[in-house]
C-alpha cells in the first residue's frame, strides 16, 4: 500500500518533470527558429525589447503584436519592476541580454562603451538634438522628451478667481503666493500638494538647483570639493523659497511624508488642489481619475531675474541601445535598427509614439497634435527652446540619500541650513558619473 503510494508519487513527479523539460526545451531558443508568425521577408528573426516605462507597457505589447505580424520580425516586449540596473545585471550575467534595452540617460554612459553598438550612421540621428554619444559614437536613441515643472489645474483655479489663468503671470514666488492666498480666500483651503517620494524630491526637484546654475559642471565640482556654499547660494535659496510656499499651502501639511502619490494625484486631477510639482509622465496617473478639462505645466515660480523662472527642466528621456554582445546576431541587430527607424521615419511608428503612448517626440520630423495636456505644455516649452537640459550624471545614490534629507526638511525635522549641510556632506564623499 505505502509502496504503491510512493511509487505513484515518484512516477508522477518524474513524468511531470519530464514534460516540464520537454516543454521548456522546445520553446527555449526563442532566437533563431522561425516560429514567429508570418515569416515573409524578415526570415522570422526574433528580437526582445526591454521597456522600462511601465505606463506604456500595454501599448508596447499591442504594438509588438501588430509589428510582428506586419514585418515578419518576432518582437517580444518585456518589463521588470526591478531597478533597471539590477534587472540588466542579471540578464547580462546570464548571457541573455535584450536586443534592445530602454534605459535612463546615465545608464548609457555606464553600459554603452561595453554593451552598445554604434548608431552614428543611422538616419534618425539627423532628426534629433537629444541622442547620446559616448566617445564620439551615437549609442543612445532618445525615446521621448520629458520635462519637470509645476502641474496646475486651471479649471479649478478659474472657478475661484473667475478670470483666465495665465501661468506666465505667476513667474515669481510673490505673485504665486498672491494667487494661492486668493484661492484660499475663495474656498480652496489648501491649494498645493507635494509628492514625498525621494525620486521626486531629490531626483527631480533638488537637481533643478544644480541644473539652473550658470555653470553646472563647475558647480558640481565645487560641491564635490566642498567649496560650494549652499546656504548662501542664490539659486538654492530661490528654489527653496518656492518649496517653502508649497509646504505652507500643502493639503497634507500635517502628514506630508505619509501622503501617497495616488491621493495627491487624484486631488490635483479632480481640482481639490491646484498645484503640484511633477512631470508630463504624471498624466498616466492623472488620467485614471475624473480629471479636469484644463490642466497643464508651467515653470517653477522663483524670485529671480536670471530667466530660469520662465523655463522648465527637461530633455531627452529614456534611451534605447542595441546590444553588442555575441548573444545577439547581426540579423537581430539589423531588425532592431529597423525598428528604431520605423519609430522615427514611419507614420505608423510616429503614431505609436505620439498617439498611443502620448510621448513628446524627440525628433524634428515628427509632429504631434493630439498630446495630453501636460505633454502639450512640455512640447510648447521645448519648441520655444525653453527647456534647461537635464544633468544626467548624478551619482546613483543621490536620489536616495539626498531624498532622505529632503524628506526630513519636508517633515520639519531640519531647517534649510541643516538641509544645506546634509547635501554638502553627501557630495563631499561622492563624485558624479564619469562622462
Amino acid at each position: 500500500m505505502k509502496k504503491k503510494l510512493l511509487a505513484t508519487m515518484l512516477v508522477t513527479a518524474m513524468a511531470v518533470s519530464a514534460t516540464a523539460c520537454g516543454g521548456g526545451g522546445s520553446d527555449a531558443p526563442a532566437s533563431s527558429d522561425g516560429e514567429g508568425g508570418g515569416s515573409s521577408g524578415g526570415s522570422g528573426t526574433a528580437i526582445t525589447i526591454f521597456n522600462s516605462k511601465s505606463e506604456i507597457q500595454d501599448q508596447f505589447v499591442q504594438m509588438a503584436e501588430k509589428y510582428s505580424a506586419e514585418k515578419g520580425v518576432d518582437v517580444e516586449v518585456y518589463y521588470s519592476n526591478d531597478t533597471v540596473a539590477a534587472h540588466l545585471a542579471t540578464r547580462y550575467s546570464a548571457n541573455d541580454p535584450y536586443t534592445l534595452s530602454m534605459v535612463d540617460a546615465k545608464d548609457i554612459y555606464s553600459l554603452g562603451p561595453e554593451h552598445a553598438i554604434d548608431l552614428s550612421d543611422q538616419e534618425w540621428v539627423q532628426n534629433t538634438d537629444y541622442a547620446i554619444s559616448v566617445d564620439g559614437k551615437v549609442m543612445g536613441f532618445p525615446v521621448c522628451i520629458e520635462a519637470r515643472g509645476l502641474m496646475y489645474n486651471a479649471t479649478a483655479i478659474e472657478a475661484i478667481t473667475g478670470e483666465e489663468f495665465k501661468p506666465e503671470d505667476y513667474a515669481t514666488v510673490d505673485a504665486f503666493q498672491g494667487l494661492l492666498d486668493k484661492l484660499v480666500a475663495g474656498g480652496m483651503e489648501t491649494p498645493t500638494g507635494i509628492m514625498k517620494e525621494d525620486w521626486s524630491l531629490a531626483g527631480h526637484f533638488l537637481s533643478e538647483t544644480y541644473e539652473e546654475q550658470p555653470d553646472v559642471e563647475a558647480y558640481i565640482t565645487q560641491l564635490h570639493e566642498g567649496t560650494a556654499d549652499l546656504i548662501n547660494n542664490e539659486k538654492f535659496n530661490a528654489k527653496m523659497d518656492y518649496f517653502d510656499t508649497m509646504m505652507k499651502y500643502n493639503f497634507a501639511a500635517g502628514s506630508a511624508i505619509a501622503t501617497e502619490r495616488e491621493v495627491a494625484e487624484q486631488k490635483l486631477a479632480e481640482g481639490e488642489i491646484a498645484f503640484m510639482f511633477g512631470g508630463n509622465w504624471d498624466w498616466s496617473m492623472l488620467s485614471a481619475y475624473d480629471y479636469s478639462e484644463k490642466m497643464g505645466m508651467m515653470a517653477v515660480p522663483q524670485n529671480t531675474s536670471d530667466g530660469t523662472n520662465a523655463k522648465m527642466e527637461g530633455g531627452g528621456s529614456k534611451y534605447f541601445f542595441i546590444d553588442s554582445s555575441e548573444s545577439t546576431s547581426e540579423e537581430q541587430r539589423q531588425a532592431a535598427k529597423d525598428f528604431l527607424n520605423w519609430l522615427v521615419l514611419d507614420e505608423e511608428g510616429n503614431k505609436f509614439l505620439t498617439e498611443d503612448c502620448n510621448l513628446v517626440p524627440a525628433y524634428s520630423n515628427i509632429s504631434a497634435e493630439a498630446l495630453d495636456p501636460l505633454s502639450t505644455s512640455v512640447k510648447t516649452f521645448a519648441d520655444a527652446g525653453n527647456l534647461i537640459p537635464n544633468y544626467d550624471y548624478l551619482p546613483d545614490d543621490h536620489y536616495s540619500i539626498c531624498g532622505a534629507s529632503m524628506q526630513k526638511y519636508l517633515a520639519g525635522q531640519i531647517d534649510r541650513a541643516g538641509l544645506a549641510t546634509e547635501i554638502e556632506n553627501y557630495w563631499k564623499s561622492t563624485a558624479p558619473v564619469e562622462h
Partner: protein
Amino acid sequence: MDANERAARNKKINHAIKIIILVALFICFIFPFILVVINVFKTKADITSNPLALIGSHGFTMKNFPEAMQKMDFWRSFGNSAIITICSTILTILFASMTAYVIVRNKWKACGALFGLMIASMVIPFQVLMIPLVSLYGGIFGILNHRATLIFMHVGFSLSMATFMFHGAINTNVPISLEEAATIDGCNRWQTYWQIVFPLLKPTIATVAIIDAMAFWNDYLLPSLVLARKELYTIPIATQVFYGTYSTDIGLVMAALLLAMLPILILYLFLQRYIVEGVTSGAVK
C-alpha cells in the same frame, strides 16, 4: 454533584472565552483580505478616494477580473506555476525526508557536515547567490529558461529547511524501537524507511508540503531570474507588470491576488485534514 456541575459550567465558560479570543484574533488576521475583497469590485478612482466604502461612486464593477486575467495570461501562467510547484514540492519532500533520516540515525562525520552546511545555508540572503547563480547556469551552462532548471533550483534551495523540519520530526516522533523490530523482521534500511518511517512522518510531510508549495507558488525573485521568456512566466512574474514605479493599478493587483491565492488555499484546506488524521492515527508512541 454540585462540584461536577460547577466544573461543567467552568468548562463552558472557558470554552466561550477561547472562542471569543479566537474570533477576535481571526478578524485581525483576516481584515486585510476583507479589504481586498471589497476593493476588487471597485474602479481605481474609487479605491483611492474611499478604500472602506463597500461600493464606490462609479458603481460595482467586475472588469478587474477579466482584465487582470488577460494581461497576465492567466491560464498559461497558472499551468507553469502548477507544474513547477507540484514537481518541486514532491521532489523536495522525498529527498529531504530521506536525507533527514540518514542524518538522524547515523552519527557519521559526512552527515554532520552536510547538516551543518544546510543549517548555515538557511541564513544566506538570497541576494548573495542571485548573480553567481545566473552567471553559472546562464553564462556557463546556458540552461536558463527551462522549467526543469527552476525546479532543480527550487529543490536545491528548499532542501535545507525541509531536511531541518524532518530532522526534528524523526528525532521526536519516530521511535527507534519500531525500526529495530522491522530490522529483526528482515527489512533492510531502505525498506524500513519507506514502510515504517515515512508513513509516520505524515503530519510533517503535510506541513512541509504546504509550506514549500506556498513558497514555490509565490516566489518571485528566483523564477524571474531563471524564466526570462514570456511563455514560461509563472503567476507572480506575470502580475509584476501591475505595479510599476510610476503607476500601480491597485484594482488589477487585487484581482490578480485573489486569483493567485485560490489554488493554494484549496491545497491547504485539503492537506489540513491530513495533518489532523496523520497525527491521530499515528499516535504509536
